[in-house]
């Protein structure tokens, strides 16, 4: 069915928000945000798809009907931004682990 990518996007956003909100380990929270980012990328690429069209490359194209290229440019930008965001959050998680002694978000004990 043609709506399958969008159903997958909705499921991934639900799983990502569940992981970011309900999990206690910091790395699992970071993974939840990363899953939401992947869902956004899938949404953008799937929104540009057209039935029976080929990749938007002009050289030796088998036909002139192509998928939309602009969402693919948006997805590239989004991938780079999500990389920077994940790196930032993971470095904060490492700092928290070094100072608090654990990566659990409920433990407030500081090492002496």
């Amino acid at each position, binding site marked *: 069915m043609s709506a399958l990518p969008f159903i997958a996007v909705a499921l991934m956003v639900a799983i990502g928000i569940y992981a970011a909100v309900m999990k206690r380990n910091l790395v699992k929270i970071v993974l939840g945000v990363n899953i939401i980012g992947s869902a956004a990328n899938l949404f953008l690429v799937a929104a540009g798809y057209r039935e029976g069209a080929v990749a938007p490359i002009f050289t030796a194209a088998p036909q002139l009907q192509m998928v939309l290229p602009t969402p693919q440019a948006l997805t590239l930008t989004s991938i780079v931004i999500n990389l920077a965001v994940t790196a*930032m*959050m993971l470095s*904060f998680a490492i700092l928290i682990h070094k100072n608090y002694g654990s990566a659990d978000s409920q433990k407030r004990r*500081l090492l002496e």
Partner: protein
Amino acid sequence: MAHNRGHPAVIDFFVQHAPALAIALPLLGAFATPLVSKLGGKARDAWVLLILVLTGAIVALLAGDVLSTGAPRAYAVGATLPSITTQGGLPIRIIIEADAMSVFMAITAMTIALLAFIYSLRFLQKHKGLDKFYTLFLLMTAGMLGMMLTGDIFSLFVFFEMLSISSAGLIAFYLNRGEPAEAAFKYMVVSAIAGLFILFAAGILYSQYNILNMAGLASAMSFSQLDKIALVLLVAALALKCGAVPMHMWAIDAYGEAPAAISAFLVVASQTSLYALFRVCFSLFGATAT
């Protein structure tokens, strides 16, 4: 007080390209700051002061131009003729739009940036790692000015993420304690989710109208069911970043654990997303009093 007729040609060049220069100068300064700080602390301070003063002057020139003519200015980035922004009725290229509210916010942001910088010269005098601090500070300024001057909903997302990543790095400046890192982690998770909601809304609007430009979307907008979903996502995302009441838990820790100069600048970051909320509700979706 209309005295733009007597300008020499050099000022005309700066006034014409002011919207792009206002974003490009802090960006260039941010990437050059680690190199300049190899020459010593005083060189780094002088370089950051120079960049901020030049950006302030360009924002003031832009404000003078927009407020004297009274009309918003559209500027196409990277074009030989920057004022050509439509082709056959469709908006083309990435467009920077400066109207009266944008330049008001930009003047406020540059004033607070200068004051925060001058305060941090003395306040953080004894800390190490100040070259990274000033790099992130200039990146935050660039992201803030980009968010205020943009006319494009995807550029809004890009500058939004630039602002949130650099301000999260600045909140975690004190590395010897655990609380700033925890505050910055909370801020980063909330900002990342907000940015991804903005991206979803931009994708929904693009897939309906094939336009990313805010003015083009406003004229093509028919308030369908998908547009209502996009509006809800945008309002939720920008309210998350403002620190509005259901989603304010990050603000307590972030404002408390940041260095004092950055606390002042973080308020401007929250007001920038409030400005973006105004822009989305009133310019993009065309809300009126009726």
